[in-house]
């Protein structure tokens, strides 16, 4: 039985420097998969490949039984409606209110009129507890609020999969846990498959079903959080306990 | 009534804002001159100004604008001559004066002004972008904290380089325009080169205008652009706005200075240009 999302021997290099070297990962439907590793190891790069924001050099990427890495830009629209992404910088559009931001995909793809789209948008914002701020502009809000609004926008098209690029990085602990809870709710109540790039231990051990540890361009190990914590692998231990010295090679230090 | 009130408030606000900006701009200018004087009175460059900076600025402004000026002014020269000949052909059919009048206009106005406008775009944007990104990445604050005046370090070298280079580039650009004009007249309208390249109408006053304008533009551009750069706020957005403002501000300054200098010259020469 093949997995819902699968990376097979994926390789990618930037300016001659290899980042992913034959990476393999299988993600099941409905699970919350965390991708962790040190900075610069290729975590964000991995998920960007899934929706074609970057192109792989070699290997295959499969989604729901179909190969997707070779699709031309024009044909990526259906894929992107099924797989949404929440970026690290939230990427809300500065010139629109939150409601207008969330309404945008609804207008474009849901064929709703502007007024109807705004009504729908407020409902989505309510789902992430942000409906009170629907008429504010992104610049007026804190990072945590912007992140939740961005999630609402991504959910507007009811995707099957949502990719999160470091959702809790830079947030205060309270906001971070709120975002974690949201992600868990998505998976549990809506059946959304979540792929989360993170290096935030409370998130990793709080909500992940499984964790993929990326190291030196491949997936070093895939395991449940508990199994990871109990692992005898010295490299894994160094990362989890956050030691600066150990068997791990960190480029640039 | 409240409609008028809001309007008047808006106008008042705009006037105040503009006046404040004008005052700050003037202060930058004065500060620059003061910086130059300071530089001369302390023989080797003064505290904080690296010796190579002036040369680097000369290179940045001069060399890198060279091709740009040659290309743009060459094309304008061709177009202007073409238009003039076309119109003369319609009215009098006599091309004997084209070259001399073109030269007169070139020296007293178009040469410096068009070079000035082009440089306002290229150099103005460059200066504002550089200084703007430095401001936004807090390098200017770092300078202040190590006891260096930003005006001394950043604007003065650019000011001197720009004044010098504008004059040189204007001379070069004008020559290119003149040559291009002659070629156009020759190949499109059959005007004899010796008829076109006629210097007899050029007088001392035209050359004075040329130099005065070139120097004025060369002084205005770095001051306006540097001012806009120093005022940049925020992040990348702020740099964008600063560069935009610099381009408009310097271009507009060139036009206004052109008008003022030309009007004054006309007045002084009693209508005889």
């Amino acid at each position: 039985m093949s997995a819902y999302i699968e990376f097979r021997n994926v390789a990618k290099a930037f300016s001659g420097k290899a980042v992913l070297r034959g990476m393999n990962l299988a993600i099941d439907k409905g699970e919350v998969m965390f991708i962790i590793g040190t900075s610069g190891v290729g975590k964000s790069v991995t998920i960007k490949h899934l929706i074609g924001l970057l192109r792989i050099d070699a290997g295959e990427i499969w989604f729901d039984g179909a190969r997707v890495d070779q699709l031309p830009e024009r044909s990526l629209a259906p894929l992107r409606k099924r797989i949404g992404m929440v970026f690290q910088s939230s990427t809300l559009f500065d010139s629109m209110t939150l409601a207008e931001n969330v309404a945008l995909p609804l207008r474009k793809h849901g064929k709703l009129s502007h007024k109807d789209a705004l009504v729908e948008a407020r409902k989505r914002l309510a789902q992430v507890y942000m409906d009170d701020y629907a008429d504010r502009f992104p610049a007026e809000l804190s990072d945590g609020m912007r992140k939740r609004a961005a999630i609402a926008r991504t959910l507007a098209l009811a995707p099957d999969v949502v990719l999160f690029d470091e959702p809790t990085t830079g947030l205060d602990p309270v906001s971070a846990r709120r975002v974690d809870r949201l992600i868990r709710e998505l998976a549990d109540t809506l059946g959304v498959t979540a792929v989360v790039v993170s290096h935030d231990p409370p998130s990793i051990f709080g909500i992940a079903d499984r964790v993929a540890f990326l190291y030196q361009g491949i997936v070093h190990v895939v395991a449940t959080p508990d199994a990871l914590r109990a692992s005898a692998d010295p490299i894994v231990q160094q990362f989890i306990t956050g030691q600066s010295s150990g068997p791990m090679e960190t480029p640039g230090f | 009534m409240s409609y008028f009130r809001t309007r008047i408030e808006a106008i008042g606000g705009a006037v105040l804002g503009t006046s404040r900006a004008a005052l700050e701009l003037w202060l930058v200018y004065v500060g620059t001159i003061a910086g130059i004087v300071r530089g001369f009175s302390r023989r080797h460059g003064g505290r904080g100004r690296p010796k190579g900076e002036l040369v680097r600025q000369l290179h940045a402004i001069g060399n890198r604008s060279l091709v740009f000026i040659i290309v743009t002014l060459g094309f304008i020269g061709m177009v202007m001559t073409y238009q003039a000949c076309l119109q003369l052909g319609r009215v009098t059919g006599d091309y004997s004066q084209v070259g001399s009048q073109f030269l007169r206009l070139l020296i007293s106005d178009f040469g410096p002004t068009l070079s000035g406008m082009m440089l306002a775009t290229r150099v103005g944007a460059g200066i504002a972008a550089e200084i703007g990104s430095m401001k936004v990445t807090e390098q200017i604050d770092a300078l202040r904290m190590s006891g260096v005046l930003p005006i001394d370090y950043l604007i003065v070298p650019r000011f001197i380089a720009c004044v010098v280079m504008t004059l040189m580039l204007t001379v070069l650009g004008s020559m290119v325009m003149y040559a291009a004009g002659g070629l156009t007249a020759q190949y499109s309208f059959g005007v004899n080169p010796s008829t076109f390249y006629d210097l007899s109408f050029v007088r001392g006053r035209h050359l004075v205008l040329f130099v005065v304008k070139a120097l004025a533009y060369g002084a205005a551009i770095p001051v306006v652009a540097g001012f806009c750069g120093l005022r940049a706020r925020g992040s990348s957005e702020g740099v964008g706005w600063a560069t935009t403002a610099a381009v408009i501000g310097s271009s507009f300054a060139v036009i206004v200075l052109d008008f003022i200098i030309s009007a004054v010259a006309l007045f002084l020469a009693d209508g005889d240009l």
Partner: protein
Amino acid sequence: MIGEKTIANIGGGAVSIAQHVGGIVVLTGQVLRALIPPRIDGRELVKNLHKMGNRSVPIVALTALFAGGLMMLQSGPFVKKLGATGLAGWAAGYAVLREIGPILIALMFSGRVGANNTAELSTMTVTEQLDGLRALAIDPVKFLVVPRVIAMMVMLVALTVIGDLVALVGATVVGSALLEIDASTMYHSFADNLKPYDFLHGISKSVAFGAAIAMSSCYFGVTVRGGAVGVGRAVNAAVVAAAVSIMLLDFFITYLAG
């Protein structure tokens, strides 16, 4: 050796110019393809028309006023000396309609609107908002670039028309205030000597300039790289590219249209 390094610089410069020109052509192709069939985001179009028009009217009007006055300063004394005051408006007016109006207004527009647009687009690119659009299966070219290109072209033509008129007014004002040529003489010399074709000649240039400014501005905006410094460089490149294109296009149109 000076020679080698200079040649290497020139060569490198030429290559990057070629790359940019190629990139702009590709973007232009994408914009054109998005126009057939024309499915443009109406709200974005209106928003941009509003923004670009509003912002530039004052500066363009002022520039045109000064430019018209300048033309009068240059040609007026000459005409007066010849006693041909009937032609006073002609020389200034002709230059304004055909050349000075379109070029100067285009340059100002490039500075005010083009640079601003590049700043906006490059900030959006640097903050991943363009990727955000792609991730929502919205094509940034269709959604952002096309409305801006159309808005810029329309606005520049409108502004040139207004600017031409204002410049003629400026010329008249200078004529009567500084050169003792009264307004009615000016008006008659305009009416008698300036032909509709002169006006159209200038407007057709505005269309071309508008396209050049729009494409250059959008291209450098969406291809920016590298944070605050990159944004500054993108704006710089956009204005310079626009200025060069304006001069080149002016040349070609003048020769082709006569």
